[in-house]
Protein backbone atom coordinates (compact mmCIF):
# COMPACT_ATOMS: atom_id res chain seq x y z
CA UNK A 1 0.00 0.00 0.00
CA UNK A 2 1.33 3.40 -0.97
CA UNK A 3 1.84 6.22 1.47
CA UNK A 4 -0.92 8.23 -0.16
CA UNK A 5 -3.49 5.50 0.35
CA UNK A 6 -2.47 5.15 3.95
CA UNK A 7 -3.08 8.85 4.41
CA UNK A 8 -6.57 8.56 2.88
CA UNK A 9 -7.39 5.64 5.18
CA UNK A 10 -6.42 7.68 8.21
CA UNK A 11 -8.37 10.74 7.06
CA UNK A 12 -11.25 10.11 9.42
CA UNK A 13 -8.88 10.12 12.38
CA UNK A 14 -7.27 13.31 11.09
CA UNK A 15 -10.62 15.06 10.67
CA UNK A 16 -11.59 13.99 14.17
CA UNK A 17 -8.38 15.59 15.53
CA UNK A 18 -9.01 18.74 13.48
CA UNK A 19 -12.57 19.01 14.72
CA UNK A 20 -11.34 18.76 18.31
CA UNK A 21 -8.75 21.50 17.87
CA UNK A 22 -11.18 23.77 16.02
CA UNK A 23 -13.74 23.36 18.76
CA UNK A 24 -11.23 24.34 21.40
CA UNK A 25 -9.88 27.21 19.32
CA UNK A 26 -13.33 28.59 18.71
CA UNK A 27 -13.72 29.49 22.34
CA UNK A 28 -10.81 31.97 22.08
CA UNK A 29 -9.68 31.41 25.62
CA UNK A 30 -6.05 32.22 26.17
CA UNK A 31 -6.01 31.67 29.92
CA UNK A 32 -7.64 28.81 31.77
CA UNK A 33 -8.47 28.74 35.44
CA UNK A 34 -8.91 24.99 35.52
CA UNK A 35 -6.81 22.61 33.38
CA UNK A 36 -8.45 22.10 29.99
CA UNK A 37 -10.05 18.72 29.25
CA UNK A 38 -9.05 17.33 32.60
CA UNK A 39 -12.42 17.57 34.33
CA UNK A 40 -13.90 14.38 35.60
CA UNK A 41 -17.14 15.64 37.02
CA UNK A 42 -19.09 18.82 36.30
CA UNK A 43 -20.88 20.28 39.28
CA UNK A 44 -23.48 22.98 38.78
CA UNK A 45 -24.76 25.12 41.63
CA UNK A 46 -27.36 27.86 41.67
CA UNK A 47 -27.56 30.46 44.42
CA UNK A 48 -30.18 33.04 43.59
CA UNK A 49 -29.22 34.60 40.24
CA UNK A 50 -25.64 33.28 40.26
CA UNK A 51 -24.81 29.87 38.78
CA UNK A 52 -21.37 28.39 39.26
CA UNK A 53 -20.11 25.54 37.06
CA UNK A 54 -17.17 23.68 38.52
CA UNK A 55 -15.04 21.02 36.83
CA UNK A 56 -13.83 18.79 39.61
CA UNK A 57 -11.04 16.24 39.14
CA UNK A 58 -12.00 12.97 40.76
CA UNK A 59 -10.76 9.39 40.58
CA UNK A 60 -12.25 7.11 37.98
CA UNK A 61 -15.04 4.92 39.42
CA UNK A 62 -13.37 1.95 37.70
CA UNK A 63 -10.01 2.46 39.46
CA UNK A 64 -8.53 -0.83 40.63
CA UNK A 65 -11.27 -2.93 39.02
CA UNK A 66 -9.79 -3.34 35.54
CA UNK A 67 -9.43 -6.98 34.53
CA UNK A 68 -5.95 -8.14 33.50
CA UNK A 69 -6.82 -10.13 30.40
CA UNK A 70 -4.12 -12.56 29.22
CA UNK A 71 -2.91 -12.47 25.63
CA UNK A 72 -1.13 -10.17 23.19
CA UNK A 73 -1.56 -6.42 23.59
CA UNK A 74 -2.61 -5.76 20.00
CA UNK A 75 -5.93 -7.53 20.56
CA UNK A 76 -8.96 -5.86 22.12
CA UNK A 77 -10.09 -6.91 25.65
CA UNK A 78 -13.04 -8.95 24.40
CA UNK A 79 -10.90 -10.80 21.83
CA UNK A 80 -8.29 -11.58 24.49
CA UNK A 81 -10.86 -13.06 26.88
CA UNK A 82 -12.58 -14.98 24.05
CA UNK A 83 -15.99 -14.74 25.73
CA UNK A 84 -19.32 -15.84 24.33
CA UNK A 85 -21.21 -12.71 25.35
CA UNK A 86 -24.99 -12.86 25.09
CA UNK A 87 -27.50 -10.05 25.38
CA UNK A 88 -28.59 -11.24 28.82
CA UNK A 89 -25.08 -10.60 30.26
CA UNK A 90 -26.03 -7.04 31.16
CA UNK A 91 -23.16 -6.58 33.63
CA UNK A 92 -20.67 -6.82 30.73
CA UNK A 93 -22.75 -4.98 28.13
CA UNK A 94 -23.61 -2.04 30.39
CA UNK A 95 -19.88 -1.20 30.64
CA UNK A 96 -19.99 -0.22 26.98
CA UNK A 97 -23.14 1.89 27.30
CA UNK A 98 -23.21 5.58 28.18
CA UNK A 99 -25.76 7.17 30.46
CA UNK A 100 -27.98 8.12 27.49
CA UNK A 101 -28.08 4.58 26.10
CA UNK A 102 -25.56 5.06 23.29
CA UNK A 103 -22.50 2.90 22.77
CA UNK A 104 -19.12 4.15 24.00
CA UNK A 105 -16.99 5.20 21.00
CA UNK A 106 -14.30 2.81 19.83
CA UNK A 107 -11.49 5.31 20.59
CA UNK A 108 -12.38 5.04 24.29
CA UNK A 109 -13.47 1.42 24.69
CA UNK A 110 -10.59 0.06 22.60
CA UNK A 111 -12.67 -2.65 20.92
CA UNK A 112 -11.77 -3.97 17.48
CA UNK A 113 -14.32 -3.27 14.77
CA UNK A 114 -15.92 -6.77 14.61
CA UNK A 115 -16.41 -6.78 18.39
CA UNK A 116 -17.71 -3.20 18.29
CA UNK A 117 -20.27 -4.15 15.63
CA UNK A 118 -21.28 -7.21 17.67
CA UNK A 119 -21.67 -5.01 20.76
CA UNK A 120 -24.04 -2.67 18.86
CA UNK A 121 -26.35 -5.65 18.16
CA UNK A 122 -26.13 -6.89 21.76
CA UNK A 123 -27.00 -3.45 23.17
CA UNK A 124 -29.97 -3.18 20.83
CA UNK A 125 -31.25 -6.58 21.94
CA UNK A 126 -30.77 -5.82 25.64
CA UNK A 127 -32.59 -2.52 25.23
CA UNK A 128 -35.55 -4.00 23.36
CA UNK A 129 -35.83 -6.87 25.86
CA UNK A 130 -36.14 -4.24 28.62
CA UNK A 131 -33.01 -5.32 30.52
CA UNK A 132 -31.43 -1.86 30.77
CA UNK A 133 -34.38 0.39 31.60
CA UNK A 134 -32.45 3.26 33.18
CA UNK A 135 -29.77 3.65 30.48
CA UNK A 136 -31.84 5.72 28.08
CA UNK A 137 -32.20 9.37 26.97
CA UNK A 138 -33.66 11.53 29.66
CA UNK A 139 -36.64 12.95 27.77
CA UNK A 140 -39.66 11.79 29.67
CA UNK A 141 -40.68 12.59 33.24
CA UNK A 142 -39.60 10.01 35.76
CA UNK A 143 -42.85 8.11 35.96
CA UNK A 144 -42.72 7.41 32.20
CA UNK A 145 -39.00 6.81 31.89
CA UNK A 146 -39.26 3.45 33.63
CA UNK A 147 -40.87 1.65 30.70
CA UNK A 148 -42.01 2.53 27.22
CA UNK A 149 -45.78 2.68 26.84
CA UNK A 150 -45.67 2.65 23.07
CA UNK A 151 -47.90 -0.10 21.61
CA UNK A 152 -45.98 -3.39 21.35
CA UNK A 153 -42.78 -2.11 22.99
CA UNK A 154 -44.14 -2.58 26.51
CA UNK A 155 -44.44 -6.35 26.14
CA UNK A 156 -41.65 -8.84 26.81
CA UNK A 157 -39.31 -9.90 24.04
CA UNK A 158 -36.75 -12.69 23.80
CA UNK A 159 -34.12 -13.62 21.24
CA UNK A 160 -33.33 -17.19 20.26
CA UNK A 161 -29.87 -17.10 21.89
CA UNK A 162 -31.11 -18.01 25.37
CA UNK A 163 -33.31 -21.00 24.52
CA UNK A 164 -32.53 -24.03 26.65
CA UNK A 165 -32.76 -27.69 25.61
Amino acid at each position, binding site marked *: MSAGMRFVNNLHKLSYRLALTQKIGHQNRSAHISPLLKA*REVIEKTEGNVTTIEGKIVDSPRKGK*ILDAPGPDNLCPLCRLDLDVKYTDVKIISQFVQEDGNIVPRQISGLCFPQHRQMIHLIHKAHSAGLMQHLRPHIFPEEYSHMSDHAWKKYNV*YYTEIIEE
Partner: protein
Amino acid sequence: MAHNRVIQWGAMARTWWLYDAKFQCPYRSAEKLCMYLEGRHKPLYHPLSDVGDHVVVINTRYVAMAEDLWRKQQYKHDTRYAGGKSSATAWRLHEADYTKILYKAVYSAAPKNLLRPTIMRRLHLYPEEDVPDDIIGNVSDVIRQIQVVPKPLDSYSAQEIEEFPKLFDWPEDHVIYKRKATTEKKEES
Protein backbone atom coordinates in the same frame (compact mmCIF):
# COMPACT_ATOMS: atom_id res chain seq x y z
CA MET B 1 -55.64 -56.27 47.78
CA ALA B 2 -56.39 -52.88 49.31
CA HIS B 3 -52.98 -51.65 48.17
CA ASN B 4 -53.68 -52.29 44.47
CA ARG B 5 -56.91 -50.35 44.74
CA VAL B 6 -55.03 -47.29 46.01
CA ILE B 7 -52.47 -47.59 43.21
CA GLN B 8 -55.28 -47.54 40.69
CA TRP B 9 -56.78 -44.44 42.27
CA GLY B 10 -53.40 -42.73 42.04
CA ALA B 11 -52.95 -43.75 38.41
CA MET B 12 -56.39 -42.68 37.25
CA ALA B 13 -56.61 -39.46 39.30
CA ARG B 14 -56.29 -36.12 37.52
CA THR B 15 -53.33 -34.26 39.02
CA TRP B 16 -53.08 -30.46 38.85
CA TRP B 17 -49.94 -28.77 37.50
CA LEU B 18 -48.72 -25.19 37.83
CA TYR B 19 -46.85 -23.36 35.05
CA ASP B 20 -45.31 -19.87 35.27
CA ALA B 21 -45.49 -18.22 31.82
CA LYS B 22 -43.25 -15.27 32.70
CA PHE B 23 -40.75 -14.63 29.85
CA GLN B 24 -41.79 -17.87 28.11
CA CYS B 25 -42.55 -18.31 24.43
CA PRO B 26 -46.32 -19.07 24.14
CA TYR B 27 -46.00 -21.32 21.08
CA ARG B 28 -43.21 -23.55 22.37
CA SER B 29 -44.67 -23.76 25.87
CA ALA B 30 -48.05 -24.74 24.35
CA GLU B 31 -46.45 -27.93 23.00
CA LYS B 32 -45.24 -28.78 26.49
CA LEU B 33 -48.58 -27.96 28.15
CA CYS B 34 -50.45 -30.15 25.63
CA MET B 35 -48.41 -33.15 26.74
CA TYR B 36 -49.84 -32.81 30.25
CA LEU B 37 -53.35 -31.86 29.08
CA GLU B 38 -53.65 -34.93 26.83
CA GLY B 39 -51.97 -37.24 29.37
CA ARG B 40 -49.10 -38.20 27.08
CA HIS B 41 -46.72 -38.30 30.06
CA LYS B 42 -48.63 -41.24 31.57
CA PRO B 43 -47.90 -44.91 30.77
CA LEU B 44 -51.63 -45.66 30.40
CA TYR B 45 -52.09 -43.04 27.67
CA HIS B 46 -54.26 -43.86 24.68
CA PRO B 47 -55.36 -41.25 22.10
CA LEU B 48 -59.02 -42.27 22.38
CA SER B 49 -59.15 -42.24 26.19
CA ASP B 50 -59.62 -39.08 28.21
CA VAL B 51 -56.79 -39.33 30.78
CA GLY B 52 -55.34 -35.82 30.78
CA ASP B 53 -54.39 -33.59 33.72
CA HIS B 54 -55.31 -30.06 34.74
CA VAL B 55 -52.81 -27.24 34.10
CA VAL B 56 -52.96 -23.86 35.86
CA VAL B 57 -50.96 -21.17 34.05
CA ILE B 58 -50.06 -17.92 35.85
CA ASN B 59 -48.44 -14.69 34.60
CA THR B 60 -49.81 -15.05 31.04
CA ARG B 61 -49.60 -11.26 30.79
CA TYR B 62 -45.79 -11.45 30.78
CA VAL B 63 -45.24 -13.98 27.97
CA ALA B 64 -42.34 -13.17 25.67
CA MET B 65 -42.46 -13.19 21.87
CA ALA B 66 -39.41 -13.71 19.66
CA GLU B 67 -37.83 -10.57 18.19
CA ASP B 68 -40.60 -8.50 16.53
CA LEU B 69 -43.43 -11.06 16.50
CA TRP B 70 -45.57 -8.77 18.65
CA ARG B 71 -45.81 -6.50 15.64
CA LYS B 72 -45.70 -9.08 12.82
CA GLN B 73 -47.79 -12.05 13.99
CA GLN B 74 -51.30 -11.83 12.55
CA TYR B 75 -54.38 -13.47 14.11
CA LYS B 76 -57.16 -13.86 11.54
CA HIS B 77 -60.86 -14.35 12.05
CA ASP B 78 -63.71 -14.93 9.60
CA THR B 79 -67.40 -14.75 10.50
CA ARG B 80 -68.36 -16.29 7.08
CA TYR B 81 -70.55 -13.29 6.35
CA ALA B 82 -69.79 -10.83 3.56
CA GLY B 83 -67.04 -8.51 4.73
CA GLY B 84 -66.63 -10.57 7.87
CA LYS B 85 -62.88 -11.11 7.59
CA SER B 86 -60.70 -9.39 10.09
CA SER B 87 -57.13 -9.62 11.39
CA ALA B 88 -55.26 -8.25 14.37
CA THR B 89 -51.59 -8.18 15.31
CA ALA B 90 -50.42 -10.09 18.36
CA TRP B 91 -49.98 -7.02 20.56
CA ARG B 92 -53.52 -5.82 19.77
CA LEU B 93 -55.00 -9.22 20.68
CA HIS B 94 -52.88 -9.27 23.83
CA GLU B 95 -54.13 -5.83 24.81
CA ALA B 96 -57.75 -6.98 24.54
CA ASP B 97 -57.24 -10.15 26.61
CA TYR B 98 -54.00 -11.15 28.32
CA THR B 99 -54.87 -14.88 28.20
CA LYS B 100 -55.96 -15.04 24.55
CA ILE B 101 -52.56 -15.66 22.93
CA LEU B 102 -51.70 -18.64 25.11
CA TYR B 103 -55.24 -20.02 24.69
CA LYS B 104 -54.98 -19.90 20.91
CA ALA B 105 -51.47 -21.38 20.99
CA VAL B 106 -52.63 -24.37 23.07
CA TYR B 107 -55.77 -24.73 20.96
CA SER B 108 -53.74 -25.08 17.76
CA ALA B 109 -51.22 -27.42 19.41
CA ALA B 110 -53.95 -29.74 20.77
CA PRO B 111 -55.10 -32.74 18.71
CA LYS B 112 -57.73 -31.87 16.10
CA ASN B 113 -60.47 -34.24 17.18
CA LEU B 114 -63.55 -34.26 19.40
CA LEU B 115 -61.43 -34.46 22.57
CA ARG B 116 -60.11 -30.93 22.02
CA PRO B 117 -62.95 -29.03 23.79
CA THR B 118 -62.60 -31.21 26.89
CA ILE B 119 -58.82 -30.74 26.85
CA MET B 120 -59.23 -26.97 26.65
CA ARG B 121 -61.62 -27.01 29.60
CA ARG B 122 -58.81 -28.41 31.76
CA LEU B 123 -56.57 -25.41 31.01
CA HIS B 124 -56.85 -22.58 33.54
CA LEU B 125 -55.22 -19.29 32.46
CA TYR B 126 -54.60 -16.31 34.75
CA PRO B 127 -52.95 -13.03 33.69
CA GLU B 128 -51.38 -12.38 37.10
CA GLU B 129 -50.27 -14.43 40.08
CA ASP B 130 -53.52 -14.23 42.01
CA VAL B 131 -55.49 -17.44 41.47
CA PRO B 132 -58.72 -18.34 43.31
CA ASP B 133 -58.19 -20.52 46.35
CA ASP B 134 -60.40 -23.37 45.13
CA ILE B 135 -58.12 -23.78 42.10
CA ILE B 136 -54.65 -23.18 43.57
CA GLY B 137 -55.56 -25.56 46.41
CA ASN B 138 -55.64 -28.51 44.00
CA VAL B 139 -52.14 -27.92 42.59
CA SER B 140 -49.64 -30.59 43.59
CA ASP B 141 -46.70 -30.12 41.20
CA VAL B 142 -44.91 -27.63 38.95
CA ILE B 143 -44.03 -27.86 35.25
CA ARG B 144 -40.49 -26.69 34.53
CA GLN B 145 -40.06 -23.49 32.49
CA ILE B 146 -38.62 -23.86 29.00
CA GLN B 147 -36.60 -20.63 28.94
CA VAL B 148 -34.31 -18.86 31.37
CA VAL B 149 -35.88 -15.71 32.80
CA PRO B 150 -33.33 -12.93 32.13
CA LYS B 151 -32.20 -10.70 34.99
CA PRO B 152 -32.42 -6.96 34.27
CA LEU B 153 -29.66 -4.57 35.32
CA ASP B 154 -31.87 -2.97 37.97
CA SER B 155 -32.18 -6.27 39.86
CA TYR B 156 -28.46 -6.13 40.77
CA SER B 157 -27.38 -3.90 43.63
CA ALA B 158 -25.09 -0.90 42.99
CA GLN B 159 -22.25 -2.54 44.90
CA GLU B 160 -22.62 -5.74 42.88
CA ILE B 161 -22.23 -3.81 39.61
CA GLU B 162 -19.27 -1.80 40.93
CA GLU B 163 -17.32 -4.86 42.02
CA PHE B 164 -17.79 -6.67 38.71
CA PRO B 165 -14.45 -6.65 36.80
CA LYS B 166 -14.30 -3.91 34.16
CA LEU B 167 -12.85 -4.33 30.67
CA PHE B 168 -11.56 -0.77 30.10
CA ASP B 169 -10.93 2.43 32.04
CA TRP B 170 -12.13 5.92 31.18
CA PRO B 171 -9.45 8.18 29.63
CA GLU B 172 -7.97 11.05 31.60
CA ASP B 173 -10.04 13.78 29.90
CA HIS B 174 -13.35 11.97 30.27
CA VAL B 175 -16.20 13.96 31.76
CA ILE B 176 -18.53 11.95 33.95
CA TYR B 177 -22.11 12.86 33.16
CA LYS B 178 -24.52 12.64 36.03
CA ARG B 179 -28.21 12.76 35.41
CA LYS B 180 -30.05 15.52 37.23
CA ALA B 181 -32.62 14.38 39.72
CA THR B 182 -36.05 15.45 38.47
CA THR B 183 -38.16 14.49 41.44
CA GLU B 184 -40.46 17.44 41.78
CA LYS B 185 -42.67 16.59 44.70
CA LYS B 186 -46.20 17.74 44.12
CA GLU B 187 -47.44 19.85 46.97
CA GLU B 188 -50.78 18.53 48.02
CA SER B 189 -53.04 21.39 48.98
